[in-house]
């Protein structure tokens, strides 16, 4: 028989409320006071940092201040995002042993595949892309992240119903740095919205129903709408005291200089490749790369998938990751040696390039 879960819709709220509710519901589930829950949430305009990120490194704080964009820190991992009422948040709170898979990668995969299935119910050709994205035609439509507390897990995702790309680029400092006349077009190539794909915004209730049905069927659960309990309300008040104050937002503070965007362009036999690399020099890790240039790769989405595969990769694993990526799929690069993609990243990170950047 299907296990009972709660369906909770907390509507449109400011970021501090939503993050305090994350803590409330996770801790309450860990304490055995709350049932497993599927929650839908939306945000007034805000910039959300990943738990381990620094606001000064990730965000244009002046722009946020001038435009009334609230800055908050998530309790989950991953990167900074811009959120406004054009996106829908979905979250699952459950016990570590409830899905029947133990490791975190498998938990992510299982839940992302179900969320992708929900989007297919809406007529979108959505797929899970390791490690944490849901994409349509190689373009990201949903990002996810999670957090554990004792025996309880919270896994959350965003769904781009609509997106103000220009504003997103202004809010996120690393994207803003690379702002050129091509930046908006470049971002649009890499993300996609439900609105763009089906030509209009579907009613929110329809999207929520698709997600709820996909999770209910995939997890064999029965969802029953309910509200916050009295004990959760009390925990929420306490959580807000910690989260709606600068100490929480400044919990991790790192100098912007430790993160920089490095660029390189080179002509290889078979094409010209340009790359921008967001590199964390302190831990020697590639945060993100963006490839462009004049080269022939089929299918074209392979370039976007390669960018996804290189996210958060330690520099010493660069060449292996690129080689494994091309070994695992059919990609036609004509005369271009696939290893060129690793070489151009190395070149962007070479000492001479560092000195110049």
């Amino acid at each position, binding site marked *: 028989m299907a296990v009972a879960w709660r369906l909770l819709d907390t509507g449109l709220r400011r970021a501090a409320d939503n993050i305090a509710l994350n803590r409330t519901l996770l801790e309450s589930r860990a304490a055995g006071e709350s049932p497993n829950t599927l929650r839908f949430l939306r945000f007034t305009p805000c910039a959300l940092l*990943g*738990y*381990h990120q620094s606001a000064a490194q990730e965000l244009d704080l002046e722009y946020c201040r001038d435009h009334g964009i609230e800055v908050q820190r998530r*309790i*989950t*991992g*991953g990167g900074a995002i811009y959120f406004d009422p054009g996106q829908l948040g979905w979250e699952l709170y459950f016990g*570590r*042993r409830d899905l*029947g*898979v*133990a*490791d*975190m*990668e498998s938990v*992510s995969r299982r839940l992302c595949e179900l969320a992708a299935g929900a989007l297919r119910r809406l007529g979108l050709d959505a797929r899970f892309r390791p*490690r*944490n994205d849901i994409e349509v035609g190689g373009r990201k439509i949903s990002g*996810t*992240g*999670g*957090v*554990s*507390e*004792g*025996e309880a897990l919270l896994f959350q995702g965003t769904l781009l119903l609509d997106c103000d790309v220009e504003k997103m680029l202004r809010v996120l400092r690393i994207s803003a740095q690379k702002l050129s006349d091509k930046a908006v077009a470049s971002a649009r190539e890499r993300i996609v919205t439900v609105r763009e794909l089906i030509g209009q915004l579907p009613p929110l209730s329809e999207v929520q129903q698709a997600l709820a049905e996909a999770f209910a069927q995939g997890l064999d659960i029965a969802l029953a709408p309910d509200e916050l309990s009295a004990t959760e309300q009390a925990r929420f008040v306490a959580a807000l005291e910690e989260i709606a104050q600068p100490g929480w937002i400044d919990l*991790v503070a790192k100098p912007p200089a430790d993160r920089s965007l490095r660029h390189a362009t080179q002509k290889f036999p078979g094409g010209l490749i340009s790359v921008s690399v967001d590199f964390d020099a*302190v*831990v*020697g*890790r590639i945060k993100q790369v963006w490839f462009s240039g004049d080269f022939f790769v089929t299918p074209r989405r392979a370039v976007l998938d390669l960018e996804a595969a290189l996210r*958060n990769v*330690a520099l010493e694993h660069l060449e292996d990751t690129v080689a494994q990526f091309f070994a695992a799929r059919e990609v036609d690069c004509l005369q271009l040696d696939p290893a060129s993609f690793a070489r151009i990243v190395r070149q962007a990170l070479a000492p001479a390039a560092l000195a110049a950047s």
Partner: protein
Amino acid sequence: MATVRGCNLPDDLYYNVENNVWARKEADGTITVGMTSYACSLAGEIVSYTPKKVGKEIEQNKSVCTVESGKWVGPVKAPVTGEVLATNPDVAAKPGAINADPYGSGWLVKMKPSSWDGDSGALVTGGGVASAFEAKMNADGFGGC
């Protein structure tokens, strides 16, 4: 040395099995704390490490450090109550060291226990380690390291 489902679990350490953490009692009365190889296998490659500040008092089973892997954030719980004496600069520079050497260079914090004798009773060591982790892995549905 115990090996359970391919996971190395040295039996001279003290474990909180549920929290998947170990403590080593040092000759000077301090302890070193870290994640088990099993915890590392569940987490995947760790990319961020944020320990509590040196000097802070942490209660037993409260978070002494936070790690992130594959966009999952998780607290590491103190095996006993005590003060944080040191955090690991090598792990801060290269969080993947936790996965590479969880019982050696990948240690997370050093602590001065308030009451080792009182608190360590809740920890498992020696001959009980293998069976305790076997039971946990079984309940978790874990295939192996």
